[in-house]
């Protein structure tokens, strides 16, 4: 502290002190766990490519983009399956996103506290319902109802969209509500003190501030919808045809990419062309999911400057 103490003795630099054994063991364990996860992912991806890539050469890209899926006659047109997945997913998103966001805003901003205390846990429980149970519900309740409305059959793209929307809703609501809750109280106070109305505050301040959280909520919801197989398989009618606009686009049976793999994997000979094509569908699904995740990252990243400003 004082000058009388003189020059402090230098720190020893010749030999590093031995590190505690415990630390070495823990660090090694964490390293192995982390690396092995990455290796497993790479292996899965390599396997998918090994089994799926040959299909792209044997069938050719034009063959895969053809309009007919009829594996018994070696017709592997993925177009009807792509259209089926697209219809069901887009339908689900169109239903679930507006409904989910408005419900979350209601829960987070408008509902009295006692109602929020009841609804929030109920919605979170809904997220835990096994998808196949929702499939039952679609089969037993929704499909007959839709047929009664005049569709040729109740097992349609629309039925699938409804079921998927219902599956995505709890995720979207719950995560959006968390994002709204995380918006600092000071933003609301500041906005209201500047003479903004309650609705202006929600629309102009709270929702933009929660944007990255809301995007994540929507993406997780969509992710659940695209990957879902069994419930969709039950209620979409499983016909690999391209629905025509003139006959009511959404009210015809379709088949999705995922349902095709699930339905046919059990009956193909390992190593056959059909087998390769099913893996190729897996690659297509992987690419789609990858694109959606990239889109989400890009949307959130576009808000980066503001996020660094200290929200969420």
């Amino acid at each position, binding site marked *: 502290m004082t000058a009388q103490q003189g020059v402090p003795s230098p720190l020893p630099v010749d030999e590093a002190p031995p590190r505690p054994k415990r630390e070495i063991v823990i660090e090694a364990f964490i390293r192995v766990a982390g690396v092995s996860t990455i290796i497993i992912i790479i292996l899965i991806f390599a396997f998918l490519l090994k089994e799926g890539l040959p299909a792209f050469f044997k069938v050719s890209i034009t063959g895969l983009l053809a309009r007919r899926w009829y594996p018994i006659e070696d017709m592997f047109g993925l177009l009807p399956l792509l259209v089926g997945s697209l219809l069901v997913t887009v339908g689900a998103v169109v239903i679930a996103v507006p409904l989910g966001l408005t419900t979350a805003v209601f829960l987070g901003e408008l509902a009295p*506290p006692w109602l929020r205390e009841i609804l929030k846990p109920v919605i979170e429980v809904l997220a835990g319902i096994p998808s196949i149970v929702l499939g039952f519900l679609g089969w037993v309740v929704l499909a007959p109802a839709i047929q009664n409305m005049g569709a040729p059959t109740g097992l349609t793209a629309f039925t699938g969209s409804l079921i998927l929307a219902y599956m995505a809703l709890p995720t979207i609501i719950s995560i959006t509500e968390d994002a709204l809750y995380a918006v*600092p109280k*000071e*933003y*609301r*106070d*500041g*906005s*209201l*003190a*500047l*003479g*903004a*109305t309650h609705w*202006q505050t929600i629309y*102009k*301040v709270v929702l*933009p*501030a929660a944007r990255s959280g809301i995007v994540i909520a929507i993406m997780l919801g969509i992710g659940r919808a695209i990957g879902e197989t069994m419930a969709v398989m039950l209620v979409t009618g499983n016909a690999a045809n391209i629905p025509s606009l003139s006959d009511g686009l959404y009210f015809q049976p379709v088949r999705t990419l995922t349902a095709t793999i699930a339905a046919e994997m059990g009956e193909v000979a390992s190593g056959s062309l059909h087998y390769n094509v099913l893996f190729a569908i897996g690659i297509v699904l992987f690419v789609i999911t990858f694109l959606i995740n990239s889109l989400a990252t890009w949307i959130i990243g576009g808000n980066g*400057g*503001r996020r*660094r*400003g*200290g*929200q969420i």
Partner: protein
Amino acid sequence: MTDSIINIQNISFTYGDGTEALKNVSLKIPRNEVFVLFGPSRAGKTTLMRLLNRLSDLQEGATHAGDVEFAGQNIFNKNIDVIALRRRIGMVFAVPIPLPGTIYENLTFGLKMAGIKDANTLNERVETSLRQSALWDEVKDRLDDSAFALSGGQKQRLCLARSLALEPDVILLDNPTSGLDPISTSIVEQSLTELKKQYTIIMVPHSVQQASRVADRAAFLLDGEVIEVGGQAQIFLHPKEKKTEDYVTGRFG
């Protein structure tokens, strides 16, 4: 004392958890002066401020009794337009948090919410309010930068400026120099002298010293009650109440 803009009559305020934050508070706030509300923490200063522009409405389960007259009208009258009230009684909070967006967006937010879209009017108000809060020279070339890029003192003045942009009658300043360095503090204090020519200012100060520097008139609050109200000289030099004297001279608090 002849021309009071706000007349607080027998206000009591109880939070949802039963805490009595204000007990029978009566105050008359004169026009174009700096009125300081000071006292130890939990005295009810912030509660009283938030009551004046009815941000207290956000408190679930809170109740109040008594009246507040602003420009001759009872602000708790159920037909009163709360939004219009908040445009005329602006507030700057203790922690300066800009809204997400640029400096310009922060300054024009209140105006746009009020339906003012004319670019000339907006630009003019932005410049006037920034000059009034002594921020113009520092930010005039970077109005489109994020408001979060500003320093703490600049953010506080930005929050003041965005309230001024609405051209209110009264500005509530809730400890506007908390966390500011001495230089920023003195800039804010100096701007008050100019501001009170045009506005009525009600302020919770950072310290007793600051209170005595900026106040024209002051009220000493303790545990939700007004102990003493008076002019600057009375309160800080010749307090009539023992409790006020003890607090002002630093014997407690």
